[in-house]
C-alpha cells in the first residue's frame, strides 16, 4: 500500500494558542480517511496546514509529503498545482463569478502522473444541477449548490489527494449521504481523500479509516469497522444524542 499524503509531527499555533499538536497522519492511495472531533478540536487548522493555507497567520511546524515530494515551504497555489487540492470549510467559491467561470479558473495540469482527471461531462453527471445553473453567479446559488461547485472545482483541478473540510455543512440529510456516497465512488476509482466531517455516523459508513482529534491531538485512529466500537466514539458521537 503506497502513501499518497503523509504528515509527520505537524503542529500549528496561533500566537500562543496551540491548535494542532504533533499530529502524524497518512492517506494511502485510493483510500478515504475520515477525521472527526468536537468543535474547536483543530480539524480545520490541521487540514488547512496540509494545504499550506490559512485565513489567519498560523505558525506551522512539521513535514508534509505528497507522493514522496516535500511540500514544506510551498505556497498554497503551488501545492494545488501539484495535486494537493483543498475545499475549505465555509466559503469555497467566488460569488461574483458564474458557475462556469468558477470552474474555468482551474486548469487540468500538463503532467497528469498520479492525478485524477475529471471532464466537464463527468462533473455534470455527478452534479446534474450544475449544468442548469452554469450561468448563475456563485452568490445566487443555494448552500448545497455552492458546495457542489466547490467540490467540482476541486475535481477539475485533477487532484492527487483531495482534502474536504465539512463539504456537507448546511446540506439536507439526504444530500449529505448523496454527496458522501459520490465521494466514495470517486475513491473507488482511485482518488485519495481526506474528509473532515461532523456527521460521524455517515462518515463511519463510508471511510476506510478514521482519526479522532481532541484538543489538537490524535486520540484514536483505526479502520472504520474498529472505530465504530471505540468507546470514545460511542460515547461522544454515537450515543442517543447524535442524529
Amino acid at each position, binding site marked *: 500500500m503506497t502513501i499518497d499524503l503523509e504528515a509527520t509531527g505537524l503542529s500549528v499555533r496561533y500566537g500562543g494558542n496551540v491548535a494542532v499538536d504533533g499530529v502524524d497522519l497518512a492517506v494511502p492511495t485510493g483510500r478515504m480517511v475520515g477525521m472527526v472531533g468536537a468543535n474547536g478540536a483543530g480539524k480545520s487548522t490541521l487540514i488547512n496546514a496540509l494545504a499550506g493555507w490559512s485565513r489567519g497567520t498560523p505558525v506551522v511546524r512539521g513535514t508534509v509529503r505528497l507522493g514522496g515530494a516535500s511540500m514544506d515551504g510551498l505556497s498554497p497555489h503551488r501545492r494545488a498545482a501539484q495535486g494537493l487540492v483543498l475545499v475549505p470549510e465555509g466559503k469555497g467559491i467566488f460569488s*461574483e463569478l458564474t458557475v462556469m467561470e468558477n470552474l474555468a479558473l*482551474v486548469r487540468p495540469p500538463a503532467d497528469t502522473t498520479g492525478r485524477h482527471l475529471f471532464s466537464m461531462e463527468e462533473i455534470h453527471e455527478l452534479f446534474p444541477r450544475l449544468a442548469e445553473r452554469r450561468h448563475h453567479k456563485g452568490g445566487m446559488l443555494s448552500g448545497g449548490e455552492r458546495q457542489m461547485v466547490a467540490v467540482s472545482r476541486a475535481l477539475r483541478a485533477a487532484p492527487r489527494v483531495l482534502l474536504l473540510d465539512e463539504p456537507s455543512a448546511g446540506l439536507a440529510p439526504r444530500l449529505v449521504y448523496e454527496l458522501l456516497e459520490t465521494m466514495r465512488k470517486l475513491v473507488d476509482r482511485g482518488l485519495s481523500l481526506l474528509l473532515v466531517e461532523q456527521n460521524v455516523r455517515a462518515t463511519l459508513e463510508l471511510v476506510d479509516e478514521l482519526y479522532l482529534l481532541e484538543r489538537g491531538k490524535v486520540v484514536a485512529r483505526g479502520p472504520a469497522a474498529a472505530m465504530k466500537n471505540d468507546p470514545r466514539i460511542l460515547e461522544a458521537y454515537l450515543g442517543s444524542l447524535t442524529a
Partner: protein
Amino acid sequence: MNILQQLINGLVLGSGYALIAIGWTVLLGAARLVNFAHGQLYMLGAFVAWAVMTKLGVNYFLAVPIAVVALGLLGVGLQGLMLRPVMQQNLTSLMIVTLGFGYVFQGGAARLFGGDPERFVSPLQAAEIRIGEIWFTWQDVLTLVGTLLLFGALWLVLNRTRVGAVVRSVAEDPRLAQLFGINAALVYIGVFVFECAAVALGAGLVAPRSPILTSMGFDEVILTFVVVVLGGIGSVTGSLVAGFGLGLFTALFGALVSSAYTTAAAFFVLLAFLVLRPRGLAAR
C-alpha cells in the same frame, strides 16, 4: 456662448478624466488596493515622454509608448517593494507607503527635470478641425477615441476572458484564489503595472494641453478621485460614465457660472451625490 462647443469640450475633458482614472479604478476594484502616488506617476509619465522627446529627439508617437513601458517597469519595482503589505491587504500601510513614494517621485523629478514649467507638445495639438463655429483638435479626437477603445478592451478582458475572471477572483478573495491554484502575488503585480502604464498613457494624451510641472501631480489627478468615487469604486463602466459626466459638468459650469470654482463645485456635486447614492453610479 455656443452650447454645442461646450458639450464637445466637456466630452474631451471627460475622456481625459476617465483615462487618467482608469488605472486607479482597476487597482481599487480589481485588487482592493490604493495608490496615493497616482498623481506623481501621471507627472512622471508626462516628464518621461517629454524628456525622451526633447533630450533624445524621439517623436511624440514613439515617446508616449516609451513612457508607458517605462512606467510599467517602475510598477513592477514598486509592487515588488510593497508585496508584503499588499498580500496582507494592509491598506493603512499602503496609503502611507504610496504617499511616501509620491513625495520621492516629486523630489526626484524636480532634481532631474528642474522646477520650471516645460512644454510637452503633441503635433496633433496644433491640428485643428473647424466646423462652422465649432472647433477641436486632432489631439482631442485621439484622446476621446483612445479612451473609448481602452475602456472597451478593458471591459472585454475583465468580463469575457479567463484572465479577467482570475483578476476578479483575486479581487473578491485572494486567499481563496490561492486554493484555485492562482498566484495572487502575480495578479497584484499585473494590476499595478496596468495602473502605472495606463496613467502614463493618460499623461501622454492629456498633459500636452498645458505646460507641465514636476509639482503638478496632485492637482492634475484630484478630479480623478471624484471620478473613481462617483463611478462606484472599482466599476469600469461607472468610471467612464462618471468621467464624461464630470467633464460635461466642468465645461458647462465653467462656461455658465465661473471657471474659478469648478473644482469646488465638482466636489460639492460629489458630496451631494454620495448622500443620495453612497455606493456611486454602479451600485445596484
